[in-house]
């Protein structure tokens, strides 16, 4: 394959991944890695290096839009980032030690989880709770707009949420993904933060988490500019278009179709990892 063909093919795949990732809320990383490894035979370490970079691009690029909506909570995000960044450093170190086959299998398993969670597509809890003692001391509670009025909400189970976030960060550093799905579970289910606050705060956190593993990825040679360039430009363009279209799209059917595609990719990655073809 010539450099021009490769760059073009990667850009198109990344654009699609970014577009679908934004529409379904799953993020571009979970699609771009299997697309590069399965369709173009790119080594998974280059793929996750490029994916990590694109994760930062979409998170930072969308930040202003999310802030405007007034849902994200900068205190919750910053506090939990202590856990995600520490986890991310551990994950990035592990990524250098774990072999290619094992990475493919772990990635496949995480994809299956993402597909199932997306298929279940729950609205999450929107019943605000009162903060417990620790959350009060950390002043994590705040308010967010519901039908034009400010609704106050509290936060619970901070230690458990913190632990979950460490795991989310480790997955992000190990696989070069945003692991937004796990972050949302930690905030929405464990810490009982309203769903909309959880998803937007998670987006805000993803970039900082990814930046924590980026330095380690760079020094290990995971970030190859010839692969990362079309991935970053493609995912960013796709995600920006996806965010524009999102308002008008029928997301429910799309999510279901997308979950099945991800499930198929997951199985192929696991099989390739086991048979040693990847």
């Amino acid at each position, binding site marked *: *394959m*010539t*450099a*021009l063909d490769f*760059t073009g093919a990667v850009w198109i795949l990344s654009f699609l991944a970014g577009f679908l990732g934004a529409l379904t809320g799953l993020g571009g990383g979970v699609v771009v890695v299997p697309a590069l490894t399965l369709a173009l*035979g*790119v*080594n998974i*370490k*280059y793929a996750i290096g490029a994916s990590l*970079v694109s994760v*930062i*691009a979409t*998170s*930072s*690029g969308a*930040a*202003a*839009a*999310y*802030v*405007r909506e007034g849902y*994200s909570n*900068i*205190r919750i995000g*910053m*506090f939990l980032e*202590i856990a995600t*960044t*520490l986890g*991310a450093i551990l994950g990035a170190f592990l990524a250098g030690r774990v072999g*290619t086959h094992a990475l493919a299998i772990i990635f496949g398993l995480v994809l299956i989880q993402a597909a199932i969670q997306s298929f279940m597509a729950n609205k999450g809890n929107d019943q605000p709770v009162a903060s417990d003692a620790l959350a*009060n001391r950390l*002043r994590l*509670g*705040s*308010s967010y707009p519901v039908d034009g009025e400010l609704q*106050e909400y509290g936060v619970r189970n901070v230690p458990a949420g913190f632990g979950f976030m460490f795991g989310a960060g480790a997955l992000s550093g190990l696989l070069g993904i945003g692991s937004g799905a796990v972050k949302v579970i930690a905030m929405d289910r464990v810490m009982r933060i309203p769903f909309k606050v959880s998803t937007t705060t998670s987006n805000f956190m993803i*970039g*900082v988490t*990814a*930046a*924590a593993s*980026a*330095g*380690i990825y*760079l*020094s*290990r*040679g995971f*970030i190859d*500019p*010839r*692969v*990362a*360039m*079309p991935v*970053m*430009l493609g995912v*960013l363009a796709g995600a920006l278009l996806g965010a524009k279209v999102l308002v008008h799209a029928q997301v429910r059917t799309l999510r279901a179709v997308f979950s099945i595609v991800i499930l198929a990719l997951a199985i192929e990655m696991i099989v390739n990892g086991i048979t040693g073809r990847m």
Partner: protein
Amino acid sequence: MNIPPMQTRMPPRMNDRRLETIIGRLLQIGVLASAATVLAGGILYLVQSHSGHVEYRNFVPLDNSAPGNPDLLTLSGVVRSAIRFDSLGLIQFGLLLLIATPVARVALAAVGFALERDRLYTVVSLIVLVILAFSLIHAT
């Protein structure tokens, strides 16, 4: 900026919101600058070596030590090759700009919380900043 009385349980909403808005804008500018740099380096790369054969099946970290090869694995090496207008160095420099955007966000949040006289969250932001610095120092 209003200084909240010590008894308020809720954080002063407007100050946090303003802080987040400023940070959000800055992040967008950072991403655009990064994308422009990566695009410029990418065009240069394709003009110079569009018909070269590429293959990424095996993981072979870029060779730093070989003479003539740009050093793309360390911060200083990337900056040096970008200044020489090496195409891959430019792309990598653009990617470094991108990696710097969330770091800048944390640093700005620390400043913002300090201005709000919020000692707890100034410290929290600084802890996150130290962790990020640890990872980046790894790349020098």
